[in-house]
């Protein structure tokens, strides 16, 4: 069974077509990263899953149920970290989690959940004084109430420091190890790469790719960069390299040349350099930076 199924989902806000026929299937038990630049439709998609907004067309099923008609049943089995939320300033962290427990009809104890997200020392403090990161953690603790089958996290690492982001990743991984499906959005590929089984990339309201990270690399092609150390860079070297078939980019920095090319022309590139009179002391291959990969799909240039 698929945990999330979107079929031809469309949504417009006035003249803006936020979703233009999104089809997406997230398998039971997988960690799915949902990527896209800001404004691409990530939050709209998540809001449709939660029945915060209603699509103009298409069907949305979550945990096998209709996201609109059975929304409460869906949310009973789903933990959500929404985007752009606020806490109740005058209620303590413990009261927030207790409220989630009461709403879900669960029988959890708030304390272990607060401990899990690193808020054990703030359990009795009012959430109004919390930093953005602490609010994120608190909402995550509320999401974890009742051992949900599905976690939906909208930009979960926003406001978290690197340490918090690592803890978040650990929580996501340990939940997934128990069979929980995790669906989370991010506009930074680096954050999803480490944990995701698959990623989907959305751009301008359309899903442009759904694959594993490796799969995405292969599809983009010319994904690797050859790094060559020489004694000195011959004149015209970058120009000559670029004119080779299969080389898309060549740059020189001091005595280092970076050549973006297809795998089977690497040796040609090296011998071309030697022909030009350079003494190659070392060479290695780097995988394309994730940012480039992301940019290739979203068309966002840095």
């Amino acid at each position, binding site marked *: 069974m698929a945990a999330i199924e979107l079929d031809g989902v469309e949504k417009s806000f006035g003249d803006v077509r936020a979703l233009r026929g999104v089809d997406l299937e997230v398998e039971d038990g997988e960690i799915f990263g949902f990527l896209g630049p800001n404004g691409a439709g990530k939050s709209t998609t998540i809001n449709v899953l939660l029945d915060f*907004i209603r699509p103009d067309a298409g069907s949305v099923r979550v945990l096998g149920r209709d996201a609109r008609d059975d929304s*409460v049943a869906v949310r009973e089995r789903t933990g959500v970290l929404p985007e752009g939320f*606020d806490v*109740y300033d005058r*209620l303590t962290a413990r*009261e927030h989690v207790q409220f989630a427990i009461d709403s879900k009809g669960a029988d959890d104890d708030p304390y272990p959940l607060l401990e899990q997200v690193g808020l054990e020392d703030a359990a009795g403090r*009012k959430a109004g004084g919390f930093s953005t990161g602490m609010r994120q953690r608190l909402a995550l603790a509320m999401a974890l109430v009742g051992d949900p089958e599905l976690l939906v996290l909208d930009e979960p690492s926003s406001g978290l420091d690197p340490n918090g982001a690592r803890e978040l990743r650990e929580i996501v991984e340990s939940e997934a190890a128990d069979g929980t499906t995790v669906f989370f959005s991010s506009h930074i590929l680096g954050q999803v790469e480490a944990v995701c089984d698959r990623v989907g990339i959305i751009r301008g309201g359309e899903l442009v790719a759904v694959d594993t990270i490796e799969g995405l690399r292969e599809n983009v092609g010319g994904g690797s960069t050859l790094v060559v150390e020489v004694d000195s860079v011959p004149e015209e070297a970058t120009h000559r390299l670029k004119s080779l078939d299969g080389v898309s980019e060549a740059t020189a920095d001091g005595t280092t040349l970076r050549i973006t090319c297809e795998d089977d022309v690497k040796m040609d590139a090296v011998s071309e350099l030697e022909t030009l009179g350079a003494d190659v002391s070392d060479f290695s291959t780097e995988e394309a930076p994730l940012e480039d990969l992301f940019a290739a799909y979203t068309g966002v240039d840095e």
Partner: protein
Amino acid sequence: MSWQAVAEKDFRDAIRSRLLIVLTLLFTLFSAGAAYLVTEIDPPQQAALTGEVTTVLLISGLVSATAVFIPIVSIAVAYRSLAGERDSGSLKLLLSLPNSRLDVVLGKFVGRSGVVAVALFVGFAVGIVVTASLADAFSPLEYVVFVGISMLFAFVFIAITVGVSAFTSSTSRAAYGAFGLFVVFQFLWSSLAQGVAYAVNGFSFEGIEEGDAVFELFQLLTILDPTAAYQQGTLWVVRSLDESGELAANNSELAFYLQDWFGFIVMALWIVIPLAVGYARFESSDL
């Protein structure tokens, strides 16, 4: 059903904001002050005639004051209930949990009603002591009944305000909307009722007599105002307690909507309809 969880959270939140304490003080001052005013400074005319301030007279004096005071307090307590959570984004937290939108509207209504009910009850409990010491012939039962009906009236304005708050997407619009309705009920309704009668009668007041259809329409419209319904309902109960049913017997030949108990039906409708309208709009809108 998780409306209880929403109501409990809301009530807790209100206690933390010291809203409850402020409201209780307000109601205490009001009930004591109004009782003093009615008995000592500006007694009803009848009391001036008989020289005796009875509980019934006292209450009829109080009702015109509570009819203004209670709506204002109720609006202040409830206008932010849903629109405020929408503005801040905490509504997303609320609806991420398995609360239906109906749970949210009902929970808010119950939670805010609880806050006002506690404040009103405590405030008027203090008021009863003042009243007992001032009124010449004090009857606790009538006073308690008066407090009960006033509480119902508070629920009416909380329902109207929660309904408006669910209907709009911003707190300022919720405040204007709820306060606007209050002004309509308090000051404009009778003119509107007259206007309707005037229009139905062919744009003139000529020939309208007690007992004819246009006059009856006017009477019906008048009583549909929740504020009028509250005053009428209170007086009906207090009078019938006082005069052991004499008036009720006289009234039984009148049309149903002129029966004094009809005020309670009107109040019940003013609880159900605004909540239903607010919910319907809230349910069908995107967050």
